[in-house]
């Protein structure tokens, strides 16, 4: 409990630091006045608007006003849409989350068995194919993979739609295109595109973990006990290779959310990534700030979850991170 509270305090502190950095960064990038105010406006109108937006006050005052508003959940209105910035982002979050979630599921559900197979049967044609594939998935650029996926599966075979999010279904109060066939069809290609790099990583981690663990004495002892092979592999081996994989999944989930930009742009997926690219282009300061802070919060939550998972998987790791 003390640990969780300490972690939460750390998280709050981290969020504060980030908000300051983000605010300073945006402050340095450009003056929104130039975009917001009609170039024809008189000097008097200019001064009045600047005062109204609080842009005439010193930097630190502006920051505290901003912080005060943020604490009340007010990130300001988008200059472009003239609606609350946070609302814009949260609206698009489910689309990004479901995409990242689908990508992670693909990476883990395929990656762990393939990697374990390659680790258990090194040198076979099957395992060499898996490893060659993972190198390919690793090194071919993301956007190029996306284009090839569209070429082959949408244009040539016509199996999947080229772009967009498709129908959204509702299940247990959650609205997501994971719940309709049409939604799933739309999601397949972008999710695969987002998954490939991580799939390659999970395969490598699962393989190296398997090779390391299978040579350990406790695996030999498990065999000496006469356990059946599935139990040795699925319980004794798998449990021991999960830690690096959980780390990767936790870390890359944040990354997937933050950097789904390329995939979302190519597949016209209406998520946060596409919104942020548009906002940066238009110097829509409140949206960019709100987005960055949302991302920071997501990373902090994921970190916390990963730590909690560790202590569930490996009893030697206590919650404060020390290894016994």
């Amino acid at each position, binding site marked *: 409990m003390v640990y969780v509270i300490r972690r939460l305090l750390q998280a709050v502190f981290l969020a504060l630091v980030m908000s300051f950095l983000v605010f300073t960064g945006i402050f340095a990038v450009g003056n929104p006045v130039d975009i917001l105010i009609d170039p024809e406006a008189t000097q008097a109108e200019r001064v009045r608007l600047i005062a109204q937006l609080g842009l005439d006050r010193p930097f630190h005052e502006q920051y505290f006003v901003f912080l005060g508003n943020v604490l009340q959940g007010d990130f300001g209105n988008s200059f472009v849409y003239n609606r609350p910035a946070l609302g814009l982002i949260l609206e698009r979050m489910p689309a990004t989350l479901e995409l990242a979630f689908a990508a992670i599921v693909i990476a883990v559900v395929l990656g762990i068995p393939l990697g374990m197979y390659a680790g258990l049967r090194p040198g076979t044609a099957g395992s060499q194919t898996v490893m060659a594939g993972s190198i390919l998935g690793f090194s071919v650029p993301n956007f190029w993979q996306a284009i090839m996926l569209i070429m082959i599966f949408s244009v040539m075979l016509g199996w999947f739609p080229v772009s967009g999010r498709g129908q959204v279904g509702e299940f247990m109060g959650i609205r997501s295109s994971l719940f309709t066939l049409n939604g799933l069809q739309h999601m397949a290609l972008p999710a695969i595109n987002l998954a490939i790099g991580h799939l390659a990583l999970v395969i490598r981690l699962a393989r190296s973990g398997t090779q390391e663990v299978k040579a350990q004495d406790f695996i030999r002892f498990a065999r*000496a006990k006469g356990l059946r092979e599935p139990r040795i592999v699925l319980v004794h081996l798998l449990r021991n290779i999960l830690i690096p994989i959980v780390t990767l999944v936790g870390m890359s989930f944040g990354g997937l959310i933050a950097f789904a930009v390329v995939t979302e742009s190519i597949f016209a997926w209406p998520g946060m990534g596409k919104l942020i690219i548009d906002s940066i282009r238009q110097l829509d300061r409140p949206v960019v700030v709100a987005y960055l802070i949302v991302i920071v919060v997501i990373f902090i939550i994921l970190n916390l979850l990963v730590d909690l998972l560790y202590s569930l998987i490996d009893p030697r790791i206590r919650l404060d991170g020390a290894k016994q």
Partner: protein
Amino acid sequence: MSLLEINNLQTHFFTSGGVVKAVDGVSYHVDRGEVLAVVGESGSGKSVTGLSVMGLIDAPGRVVGGSIRFDGREIANLPGHAMRQLRGARIAMIFQDPMMTLNPVLRVDTQMVETIHAHREMSKSAAWALCRDTLGRVGIPAPDERMRAFPHQFSGGMRQRVAIAIALLNKPDLIIADEPTTALDVTIQAQILHLMQGLVEEDGTGLVWITHDLSVVAGFADRVAVMYAGEIVEQATTDSLIEAPQHPYSRGLIGSVPSRNRRGARLAQIPGGAPPALNRPEGCRFAPRCAYRMAGCDAPQSLRNNVRCWRADELPAFDEVPA
């Protein structure tokens, strides 16, 4: 008919550097209720022999020749599923490093109960109770609580007791113990030794006790097999081996046990090291280190009267050898 009879066993490893003949014509046998000690320096093939019996030799290794008869049945190169049914049920094995033999992420009760369920139907609660009682039997205090603990919550000696309990769960006929005390403190070693001695006596289990420490063997083992470079160089009852070792290598081993140095002389050591497994002498494998070597030792040696040395009969009696 002995419980375990190994005859002319050959276990080789086919490595890129050549064929490593880790076990090269080993024969020994163990009866029910008997303790056979297998001693020899590191790399002599003691573990590989034990693992061959268990059917646990992995590629690039293979049992390429000889026979392993267990309870009258040939088990060398038995199909995988048949061998699995024997492992942990009728033949159990304990390993050297108790810190490494238990799975660090599974509770002790999980690792015990699964050993029972791999071999017979039993309700979960009955299996759990049997496991707890067995923990008690190997001298673990408060077994009810300790069942729910993880391996890292035990000391090294206690972990080895857990491993022994696991080996005992299915009442095996034979236990192969591969240096189970080597990694432990001397006092703990003695406790474990005493425990094992009591347990196999109670159950009438056959025990193969692998060690490179001869001082452990006296008063415990019934017979001793001395291994050197993949072969057995001498086999004898414990008493006669300790009182009158025949083979020059056995003499060296006994001479290097502290308690043998009655006259307070310095510890005798066998000069040199074991020959590399890929490049052994053509003739007697011990020749490069042997003080009694002569021209005739260039020929391969075979076991005669359980000693692999053609000069054994003409060598001076052991007591006359200066310590």
